[in-house]
């Protein structure tokens, strides 16, 4: 009887099984988004505090720390801007996915659930672009 009713339903549903998976994915997504945002904050802070030393052409002779003085400065700045943009945008999108998806699944609200999916789409778009650029840069570094 129940099987007949299920088969008569058109299309896919977020049933009991996928609901549990979405809820767990949202829980971990929330944790990862917080890590991304904390990393963004720490990275920006370190960059602001250490930038004069990291990018200075006149590094004191006694300085033994990290030096970012090789390569094209424009490329260097581009990579840092890309990383900072990725961390903040991916963090926000993942946080939005986690909160909207969990809320949508719990309250059975289609609109909120779709908002969560939209945020997940944006997260994967930015992740794919960032990872693709990283792969290309790594290949260039490896071959030169």
């Amino acid at each position, binding site marked *: 009887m129940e099987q007949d009713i299920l088969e008569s339903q058109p299309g*896919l549903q977020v049933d009991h099984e996928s609901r549990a998976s979405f809820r767990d994915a949202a829980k971990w997504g929330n944790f990862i988004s917080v*890590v991304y945002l904390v990393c963004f904050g720490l990275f920006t802070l370190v960059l602001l505090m250490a930038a004069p030393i990291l990018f200075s052409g006149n590094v004191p002779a006694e300085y033994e720390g990290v030096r970012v003085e090789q390569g094209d400065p424009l490329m260097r700045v581009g990579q840092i801007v890309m990383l900072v943009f990725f961390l903040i945008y991916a963090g926000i999108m993942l946080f939005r996915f986690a909160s909207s998806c969990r809320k949508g699944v719990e309250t059975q609200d289609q609109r909120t*659930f779709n908002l969560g999916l939209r945020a997940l789409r944006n997260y*994967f778009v930015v992740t794919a672009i960032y990872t693709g650029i*990283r*792969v290309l840069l790594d290949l260039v570094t*490896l071959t030169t």
Partner: protein
Amino acid sequence: MFQSNTNIFGDLNIDPEARGLLETIVRWARIAGIAGLLSAGITLLAAILGIVQSGATGSGLESMAARAGLMMAIPLAIGMAALNIFLVRFASYTGNGVAGENQSIFNQGIKFLQLYFKAMGIIIIIAIGLFVLVIIAFVIGTTLG
């Protein structure tokens, strides 16, 4: 008038908007997964090349550093590969589930999304733990030495 978005069991439906979003998610997740797998391979290759180069031209210290690099690159590459395999499987199962309107395959795909985020979270927790251990070791080393 008001139209219910749930079926008689109270489940959400994958409506045309959600379907379109899932199709785009699957496309980009597949690209991200394949790029991530390539990145894992490049990480491993770079570490192996480092060993080969240091063996040919480097000093003893350089060779030791290259070996240490490889020791770090192996678990990193394995973690990255596992993570991206989950992502590629999520993309293929969910894509097939949505295209064929197959509930069981769709559920399996969403299970892989859950596994992807869970594995990423666990890797982050391990990385934070290692980072804290290194800081503690550094502080103890500085205090004692």
